[in-house]
């Protein structure tokens, strides 16, 4: 790790000010579970870390009067996993949090950090390799060993989105509250991530001197939601695929569906074809299968990850059935 200075702001506004680097690389430190490893590997070499953990009030889980779930950006994954209101009303989020990382990671890793983790690609994370994400000419995984990478194309980089929370939060249509020099703004989860083509220098819409302060999740009353993932190892392992399915049903028929896949695309992958396939139909083994097939029709697997297509289709089918509560087939 290079030497850096550690700033300890007292307020979000001060944090933003301290992050403003004017050409010097300043970065935010929350739980530290991703950034410290990247710094040890010399993939990131900020000259200043702005420690957000001293910010007051960002570690609270609250349900507001509109029934929305408010998660401070510094809420840990362990807090989220254990919080009664979350387990009750946004259970897929609690389940996803419980599956993220390891107990040790969940005890320090934060909601904000989980959403902002850097691409977990073995080319990106090898400092001597100049992949496109690091300003190089090409995505090395596309032509290299991509067994764990994306099967859905989205703008050049094929590192899969591994954020355990982004998948369910996108399905719950959550938004993040972002604080920057000009005050706060809200960004929908569905708009948070940027492709390499959209922005070669950042993988989210956050500017270097912006921080996530809160995540706001709309009430999920009436929605049937399930989250499932496939990991090769039962112990700590990055998922091969994740799926969150949220169904708004009326008398057994799907009124609206939201289908989000994780670990298979560079961003949480919202499958419109799968949602469309479910709309207006009852959830059965057959309609679930059709929806899953519709989702995977868009897949463009790489040289080494064709196996993820069937695996993801099967996972999605099971997740749809689980959301509908009709058994997992």
């Amino acid at each position, binding site marked *: 790790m290079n*030497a*850096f*200075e*550690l700033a300890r*702001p007292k307020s979000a506004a001060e944090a933003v000010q301290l992050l403003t680097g004017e050409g010097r690389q300043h970065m935010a430190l929350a739980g530290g579970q991703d950034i*410290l490893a990247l710094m040890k590997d010399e993939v990131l070499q900020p000259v200043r870390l702005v420690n957000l953990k001293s910010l007051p009030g960002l570690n609270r889980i609250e349900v507001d009067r509109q029934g929305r779930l408010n998660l401070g950006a510094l809420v840990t994954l362990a807090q989220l996993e254990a919080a009664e209101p979350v387990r009750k009303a946004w259970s897929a989020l609690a389940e996803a949090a419980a599956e993220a*990382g390891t107990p040790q990671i969940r005890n320090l890793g934060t909601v904000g950090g989980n959403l902002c983790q850097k691409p977990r690609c073995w080319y990106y994370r090898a400092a001597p390799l100049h992949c496109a994400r690091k300003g190089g000419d090409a995505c090395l995984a596309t032509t290299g060993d991509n067994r764990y990478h994306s099967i859905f194309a989205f703008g050049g980089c094929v590192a899969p989105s591994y954020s355990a929370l982004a998948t369910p939060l996108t399905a719950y249509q959550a938004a993040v509250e972002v604080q920057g020099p000009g005050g706060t703004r809200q960004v929908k989860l569905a708009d948070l991530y940027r492709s390499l083509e959209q922005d070669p220098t950042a993988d989210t819409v956050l500017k270097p001197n912006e921080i996530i302060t809160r995540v706001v999740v709309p009430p999920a009353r009436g929605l049937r939601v399930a989250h499932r993932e496939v990991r090769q190892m039962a112990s700590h392992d990055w998922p091969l695929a994740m799926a969150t399915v949220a169904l708004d049903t009326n008398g057994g028929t799907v009124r609206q569906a939201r289908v989000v896949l994780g670990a298979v695309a560079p961003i949480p992958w919202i499958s419109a074809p799968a949602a469309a396939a479910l709309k207006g139909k009852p959830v059965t083994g057959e309609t679930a299968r059709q929806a899953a097939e519709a989702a995977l029709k868009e897949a463009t697997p790489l040289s080494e990850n064709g196996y993820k297509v069937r695996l993801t289709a099967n996972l999605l089918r099971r997740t749809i059935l689980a959301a509908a509560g009709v058994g997992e087939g």
Partner: protein
Amino acid sequence: MDGSEPGDGQGFSRRDFLRGAATGAVVSSLVGQASAADPPAPSASAPIVSGAVTAQLMVNGHRLQVVVEPRTTLLDALRDGKAPDGKPIDLTGAKRVCDRGACGSCTVLFDGKPVYACSVLALDALGHAITTVEGLGDVDRLHPVQEAFVQHDALMCGFCTPGFVVAAAGLLKANPHPSPEEIRRGLGGNLCRCGTYSRILEAVAEAARTGKGA
């Protein structure tokens, strides 16, 4: 130094240090600059810290002064750190194996919860109670989890063992009567290469059964 002896033979008695009475509400803080050559001394409220500073950590119930930089991890402070007078901290129970939060060998308790000491900055431990494997028990006064590991032969080379012991102690503190599945999940952040898992799971179940895990 003879590794079979718990003392360290360097004029720094770790055993006495560990056995001293735990003090109550000690607020850890930055206590000043390490050398006059550095910029003016920051206080705990100073907005920016750079270069070497002396930090006061709360480790195993004791105030511990250690010279660190912002980039020094808690693990490195414990293992390789030195007090302002140059004496090594020498708490080498937590091991540096992957140094990337993947193996669990450096697990310590952070306010009672297991964390990877390699993935926490030492300066981020200010104000928090740190417990290392050395603080759980000593050779002749083992913690129940440690005792169960001994009895069940839940160790071989022993390099992962401190991490597992601390993770298990943290698990039982939060959940004194875990199911076998909860034990597996609770230890899911730790790896062993010798293959002691079966006996680790037995040992932790045993420590939980006797109700003395926490």
